[in-house]
């Protein structure tokens, strides 16, 4: 955890927001572990239960989302990959409708058509997609639109370290650098692309260096540190807002759970999760808030309670919502004239 210095850079309300949001994300994902398991025991059947289909959870990866999103407004665009809940929550996506979407309900963001990998909340300019690295080009397009419209809005695309080897990564970074677009690409290095460890997918140890190939700054955040992510993101966002062009950030982060729920995880050491959890950024940040006198135990408890309540309400909303009518499957293909 960054030392006392960062206190000068980070407004207290941002620090508290980051903590509360991390707690919210974590609790959201833990609730999802439960919700996803409903109807999948004793036999795990991916298509059964309250929440069917694939489920990629982000417990442990909160710092990437909150450290960046602390600098964004509703006018800034975020695109996320197949593991999108932490980004969505930090970006302020409507939590009730997001949860309803994941539950396949009519009140969901996409009326139940999208599901957990396809969450769209245009009000806060959030989108995600299940195809690796496919969010990068549209984010560059959002950045281009901002530039064309003379706005100082920025766009941020999140991608896994595995996704940094996709062609879309290269093409988008080159385009953004060439056109000096207000784009920031954040690589979340959780060490795995499904089962494949970074050293088996990526020819260089760290992706920040790849900025060199585009004449763009590359930043690296170690140890899943939310405060360092905040600091680095501040620089990248400021650059982008000032018209100085794109940046690349790689953050070392932790994937506590399997790639998706139900992952047998044969490919990683049995105690890896436990080891990672020892360095959990949430208690680290909690301690730091206390140490720095930015929040009292009581205040923290209040933040935690609020976060939990919001999540509980979102899940309750989802559960209470109705399923769409079958024939609605035929609606929404095209915008009517």
């Amino acid at each position, binding site marked *: 955890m960054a030392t006392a210095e960062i206190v000068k850079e980070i407004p207290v309300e941002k620090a508290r927001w980051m903590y509360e949001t991390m707690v919210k994300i974590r609790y959201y994902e833990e609730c999802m572990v439960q919700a996803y398991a409903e109807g999948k025991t004793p036999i795990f059947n991916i298509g059964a239960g309250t929440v069917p289909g694939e489920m990629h959870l982000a417990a442990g990866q909160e710092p990437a989302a909150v450290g960046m999103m602390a600098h964004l407004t509703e006018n800034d665009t975020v695109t996320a990959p197949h593991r999108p809940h932490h980004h969505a929550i930090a970006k302020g996506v409507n939590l009730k409708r997001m949860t309803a979407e994941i539950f396949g309900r009519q009140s969901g963001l996409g009326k139940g058509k999208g599901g957990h990998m396809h969450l*769209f909340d245009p009000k806060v300019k959030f989108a995600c997609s299940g195809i690796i690295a496919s969010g*990068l*080009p549209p984010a560059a*397009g959002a950045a281009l*639109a901002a530039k064309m419209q003379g706005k100082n809005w920025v766009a941020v695309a999140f991608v896994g370290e595995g996704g940094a080897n996709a062609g879309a990564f290269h093409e988008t970074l080159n385009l953004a650098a060439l056109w000096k677009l207000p784009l920031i690409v954040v690589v979340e290095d959780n060490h795995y692309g499904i089962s494949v460890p970074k050293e088996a997918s990526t020819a260089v140890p760290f992706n920040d260096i790849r900025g060199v190939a585009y004449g763009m700054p590359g930043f690296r955040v170690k140890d899943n540190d939310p405060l360092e992510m905040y600091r680095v993101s501040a620089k990248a966002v400021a650059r982008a807002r000032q018209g100085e062009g794109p940046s690349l950030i790689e953050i070392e982060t932790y994937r506590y759970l399997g790639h998706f729920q139900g992952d047998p995880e044969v490919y990683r050491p049995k105690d890896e999760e436990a080891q990672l959890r020892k360095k959990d950024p949430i208690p680290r940040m909690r301690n730091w808030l206390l140490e720095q006198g930015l929040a009292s135990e009581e205040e923290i408890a209040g933040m935690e309670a609020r976060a939990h309540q919001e999540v509980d309400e979102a899940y309750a909303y989802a559960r209470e919502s109705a399923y769409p009518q079958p024939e609605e499957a035929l609606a929404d293909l095209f*915008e009517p004239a």
Partner: protein
Amino acid sequence: MATTAKSRMLTGSKAMVEAIDQEMERDPRVFVMGEDVGKYGGIFGSTTGLFEKYGPTRILDTPISETAFIGAAIGAAMEGMRPIVELMFVDFFGVCMDQIYNQMAKIHYMSGGHVKVPLVLMTAVGGGYNDAAQHSQTLYATFAHLPGMKVVAPTFPDDLKGMMIAAIREDNPVILMFHKGLQGLGWMDQLDASIGEVPQEPYTVPLGRSRIVREGNDVTIVGIQMMTVHAMKAAEQLKEAGIDAEVIDLRSLVPLDRETILRSVAKTHRLLVVDEDYQSYGMSAEIAATVAEAGLYDLEAPIRRLAIPDVPIPYSDPLENFVLPNAEKIAEAAKALVNM
């Protein structure tokens, strides 16, 4: 499109450029991106003169990064811009199809209709000038098979203009295919069909409606773009043989104007579908299936398809001529059908 006092003869490409130009004047959100669309004016002339008029902020030359720039057009469209993006040859779709079919075409649906993607992807199709296997395809069915995008392929200059304007104003993603041989380019075969009366004023031609370009009673010939042109020539030959062919220019693959085809077949009782795309799993199959489903009892002869016989487009002249349908082959097939 009725010609007016203010219409002139224009080539296909000039008609298309005029459409883009008029829409760019009308709507500041419209801009163009693509390879060589700037000073060069588009390899197939689809942006000639626009760079000079609108400059590099609205006519953007791109790197050879189709995934990035088509994806960027999608992102810009989601933010309320109205991009026109060029994929130089349709044959190149393989480097960027994910953005096209998994993002552009699905976002509206996946978002429950909450996100609009108003984008025109224009792309050149067609062979017949020995550009071989990777630069001569039409791939009509490849795009039309995948839901969420409108796919149109106008044949004549007036439709090129009217459908381009309609596509730009449309709130959905539209693939607009133009046929290289019908753009009236100075460096291609000069075909009469590539020049036509085009009204000066902006106007729209609705997407999704075919046009009967020749009425007839003996056989229905359905074509699109170059195959429509060949079919019209074939109809002249057939006339001499006493056969009165009806020729339908499809114009649009998605939506597909099934009614016009069915109505025509109900009248002629015979159907020949001509396609410059690969035959199997192609447009010709969809038309045939439509009639076999909804117009079966109207048929007095088996349906006949004429299309690329499921090989890549070969380079050499005799080989390419062999695989491409033309007026003679169409007339022959129609005759056989009528004599059945």
